[in-house]
């Protein structure tokens, strides 16, 4: 079980958090400017990175805040 550092609360057990998938893929400002294929890509496709990945987490059983961090998907180590 990982220790995750919530930017608001500090280091807590992983069980207090929920993963929100890859970060830095904002919802398109005008979804209708995208073709069907582009929209499907946004909806369904993920990078599935092996290595350093920016990802979203929420301190669900804590302060409830969303934040992003960088994790190495091979080792589970969080980058500072």
């Amino acid at each position: 079980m990982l220790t995750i550092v919530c930017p608001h609360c500090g280091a807590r057990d992983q069980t207090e958090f929920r993963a929100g998938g890859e970060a830095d893929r904002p919802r398109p400002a005008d979804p209708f400017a995208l073709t069907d294929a582009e929209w499907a890509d946004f909806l369904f496709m993920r990078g599935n990175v092996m290595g350093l990945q920016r990802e979203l987490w929420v301190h669900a059983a804590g302060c409830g805040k969303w934040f992003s961090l960088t994790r190495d998907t091979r080792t589970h180590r969080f980058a500072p």
Partner: protein
Amino acid sequence: MRVALGGTRIDRSRTIHFRFDGRTLAGHPGDTLASALLANGIHLVGRSFKYHRPRGILSAGAEEPNALVTIGEGAFAEPNSRATMVELYDGLVARSQNAWPSLGHDLGAVTGIASRLFPAGFYYKTFLGSSRTWTGLYEPLIRRMAGLGPAPTAADPDAYDKVHAHCETLVVGGGAAGRAAALEALGQGRVILIDEGVATPPLDGVRLLNRTTAFGCYDDNLVMAVERVNDHLPPGERRGPRQRLWQIRAKRIVLATGAHQQPLVFPNNDLPAIMIASAGLTYLRDFGLLVGRRIVMVGSSDAADELRAAGAQVIEVAAIAAAHGRKRVASVTDGQGTRHRCDAVLMAGGWQPAVHLHSQIGGRLSFDPARHCFVPVVDPSRARLIGACAGDVPVDRPSAPVAGPNAFVDFQNDVTLADIDLATREGFVSVEHLKRYTTTGMATDQGKLSNLNAITRLAHNLGGAPGSVGTTTFRPPYTPVTFGALAAHDRDQFIDPTRTTPMHDWHVGQGAVFEDVGQWKRPRYFPRDGEDMRAAVRRECRAVRRGVGVLDASTLGKIDVRGPDAASFLNLIYANGWSKLPVGRCRYGVMLGEDGMVFDDGVSARIAEHQFLTFTTTGNAARVLDHMEDYHQTEWPHLKVWLNSVTEHWAAAVVTGPLARDVLREVVSDVDLSAAAFPHLSWREGRIAGHKVRLYRISFTGELSFEVHCDSRFARPIWEALLAAGERFGITPYGTEAMHVLRAEKAYVIIGQETDGTVAPDDLGLSWVVSKSKPDFIGKRSLARPELQRPDRKQLVGLTMDAFVDEGAQLTAGAADTVMLGHVTSSYPGAVDEKPFALALVTGGRQRIGTSLYAHFGGRSLRCNVTDPVFYDPEGVRLHG
């Protein structure tokens, strides 16, 4: 046989008694069950897993694969306890396992049937034949033949504890190396020292956990350990929890877990009284006993003199070609072919460091040819290993394995050298495949005494060194852990919170039958005078359709949405528009996922210009709030809106039926209840029994309905005031079952019943809800995808038929068709006429209205007429009343 020398762990001045397979035997305080049995000359303690071979005590510690016994009786029984780890107490009751009819005369071993049933890879070979051969012959036979001790059938009556601990340094292993490391770490903050044994004396400043096994090491230096708090005490002297689960986060971990001396492989090496050499010495030094009078020592004879001094005859041999005997070793043939009579054998294979915890978290291993064992690869980012577990073990080149019948590699899973050789010949040349095919190393002992010999043999067969084939992955737990300790307090009513409404006690008093909806207890129906569910639901439904009913709807999710951008926010969250909804009015809304599929539904009310109250389905309340928070925080943080769950702040009672208004007129003040002043889908504030209430005209039954919401603290008097006022109108409390029937007749969908994450608003006939004018909302772009325009999407329809159909029944066009066109989502008897009706999702369903389909369930087919899904008052005259 107890001798005068040694015995540091036992108190010879006191004698205690225990029972083994019904015999009463004596031992001393400090004995383990294994040492006490050996002191009584008992070597045969169990039968093996597959072949029912007589087995004895192989080791003196946690690595024991053979001496598994059941401790205690009835619900307290603990099967598969290692006799070497069970501390003796007065009155202990132990039984041998896997023997029938008795340990001494086991039929499985006599017939030899087992050895034909279980060659290497037996699951893939033996059980060929029809499926009837499996259920009729093989499975019962194997269940009878193979196995460990039976689990008790009653619930575990013991209590368990679970604690978290934090420290700067955690040392695992209380031997000399571990104790030195603990003292050394004292200057760097809190130190916890874990030791499996009992004898570790306290160290100043160190938190010492005796009788505690660290069984798992996880990411970020989390170590899980189980402390046996009471297992060593007679039942009458036990206080507090039986065991305690420790979850320890450490800044640094030091492993001083020692090493396990390995067995040698030769025919009949599993006979009772053939033991690991170091164990024979432990029994002498710690427990003051000799494991035999005439002992053969093979591999290493370092301790021969010590055994002689204690009174044993010791024969030293370089190698053993075979052992002989039936229920105990009687002689051995040495490497030169000479036969030696004996009553015990001490064998010294190499020493394998106990690297399990290091390996569990991904620490690497390398093969050390000089010591013939796998040693940990030093990695400064991981736990530090010291002493024997770091590879500081004697250089002991073990004698080569000797092939032949019954030369065991894995004692607990009954895997022989011949099995390994067969697997290699059959092409299982990867160590991971070998493990799965032969099951070597997969028993509860995790291969502590078998992995090294198995890997060595595989490498030999392939013509390489053990390092070339690698090792299998070590997984937690290091030794078996009781489910009780893992669950600890999280059992029975504590496994999950139970949520009850403020009216719960009233429902209990009325004899309500409850159902679980998420964590909530909701009345399902209120049986009267011996009614069954069907009769009660019929009465409750009729009361609502003809008179008036009352439902506790407090469990409804409620989210307070407020701020200057509240309406803009809801416009993005919901498929429908909110900007023009006036204060005092309500609107039904549908929430979609970004994929366009229905996620939740419910009514929202505009409380003030900048405040809405959003109702969610009972089971989805937390998910909906999470969903809103997610979008607010990550996508639209610029919107000034605040979200709060107020589910438990507000209790709610639904008063519904043609007489609902008449009931409310009796108790509500400050509100004009007339249809003109207080129309459908609006809300007003009033008073009942002196308390402020909000009345919402929302209908989930199709009848005239008022939802009475109030501060939860005053819910009980308000509920009772409503029932008192309704008495002369025959007000009838109803439960969720009647609610379902009533809503289904109106085709009001239930999220999770009519929807499953693949259902879009139009599929449910809810296109009218979806705003055409809003430029964007969650799911809008997806609704324009071609997949969601297809005319053959599954659509909600009604079904009528002559008999009841099961929910989930598949639907086809013809009685004998196999092409499934959809399925039944809801099925009930009609509220008043009791005629069976159903809702279903059917491919191109709306086009099929007026045709028929066949429902298939429980081996039968039933003809169904496809209808409009709204069965009751399609014009909505009644709910506007």
